[in-house]
């Protein structure tokens, strides 16, 4: 892909991000940080390419280490977000236990 077309995607995505994030309710700002954390581990794609490629053993091991680190983040980030979101409940008449 041309550099300029990649840049276009990037700039437009920044605008999308700007509007989407402003619409996030302040009560969910902590889950927002947790989930952005999880999705920024999409860097795992680069790590996979590095660890999959032949050619440099060092590069492969670095890639594998990065895969492991990013996996901590992916699983940890999504799981902790899920755990937090599950706690947000509306007022319900029958007390749902302590």
């Amino acid at each position: 892909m041309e550099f300029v077309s990649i840049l276009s995607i990037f700039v437009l995505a920044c605008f999308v991000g700007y509007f989407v994030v402003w619409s996030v309710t302040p009560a969910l700002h902590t889950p927002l940080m947790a989930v952005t954390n999880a999705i920024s581990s999409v860097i795992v794609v680069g790590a996979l390419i590095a660890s999959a490629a032949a050619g440099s053993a060092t590069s492969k091991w670095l890639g594998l280490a990065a895969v492991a680190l990013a996996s901590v983040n992916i699983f940890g980030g999504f799981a902790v977000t899920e755990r937090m979101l599950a706690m947000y409940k509306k007022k319900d008449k029958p007390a749902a236990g302590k």
Partner: protein
Amino acid sequence: MEQVVANPWAMLAYLVAGVCFILALRGLSSPVSSRRGNRFGMFGMALAVGTTLVTHQIASLPEIGIAIVIGGIVGFITARKIAMTAMPQLVAAFHSLVGLAAVLVAVAAYLNPAAFGIAEPGGAIHQVSRIEMGLGIAIGAITFSGSVIAFLKLNGNMSGKPIMLPGRHIINLGTLALIIGLIGYFLTDEAPWVFFTITGLSFLIGFLLIIPIGGADMPVVVSMLNSYSGWAAAAMGFTLHNTAMIITGALVGSSGAILSYIMCAAMNRSFISVIAGGFGGDSGAASGGGQAIDRPWKRGSAEDAAFLMSQAEQVIIVPGYGMAVAQAQHALREMADQLKAEGVAVKYAIHPVAGRMPGHMNVLLAEANVPYDEVFELEDINSEFAQTDVAFVIGANDVTNPAAKTDKSSPIYGMPVLDVEKAKTVLFVKRSMGGVGYAGVDNEVFYRDNTMMLLADAKKMVEEIVKALGH
């Protein structure tokens, strides 16, 4: 020149993954749609990983599987076990992992450019790719070392007090300029020393940038590092021509930037002054006025508090970081339940910078089963204090200080605050009279006629009130 992703289906899949991530954030606009959003995020991630695995000749699938399983188990267990009060340090730790992963990927790409499709036929790395890699590794390294310091501070392994090096502004600016200069030089010379010097200096600057920032400014720091981790992913996305990474990077980058902005606005401070650091140390204490401790104030007991609140029509609870430290949220919810049983309306008022990260108080209250429709943001509830019988301040201080509205010499002047003093009675739970808030200023509210100080550990005090309400 060899292309990384020649397969149009793969490119399409990455685009879909990117859209899923947008939907993941979009879902957070309301607690109702948030969990579906999170599922979109998981799906997007699975799609991105799956696509990469399918479209590359994988020479080492078992090793990759093992790496994912090890990382996945560690992450999953951590996420299950972590206490909600420890969420800020967990997020900081996660940021550091993204940063380190970005650094590792950039180094791997530097060592084996052909695998990433960024090599010229002669073996040299494309010039554009060099800039992208340079930026990627610099931002990644800053994210890593900065987040490690933020983690240590939030986790209490390191004092929350700012550490001020002499001449730090000059050192920091010089290091930054050097990094930028070297990235420029990297264009003409791709020698290892250039690349690894950039890396080393970036680790250093991340460390230097965060040590002078005090505990109260941590919400901004955590948001800022969140933003950096996004930009690092975006830079690597440019290197790999990967739309999923670029979209994600842009989303996360703007998200962190907006959160930093919101936090700064809620403290009426400029981003630059937060980054310059030093706030929350001794510097602010001098301007609080000399007549601090020896002014008259009223002390109340748990029984007094219980009586006042049970007679009230409406009680607004104002929680702060102290509630998190004392782990008082569950006891607090019990107290609110008892009050509600006696017909008292109970609401919660949350200041944007209460706690150590954006939305920290909301999560703690949600954990204690407080329904989210009883929890209000500052601008939605501030006008209600005047019609409220009791404002119950627990573990918050600076965010209730009326000096922010009246005293131009106060370091927190101009910061939006909760008007607790307008309530008929203010019950202020605090450890002792001696301590001041993070801004280092005395709080006028303590000495007002309608204020009763409840001096004790927050959790113990609330438990005693619960007991007294039971009688």
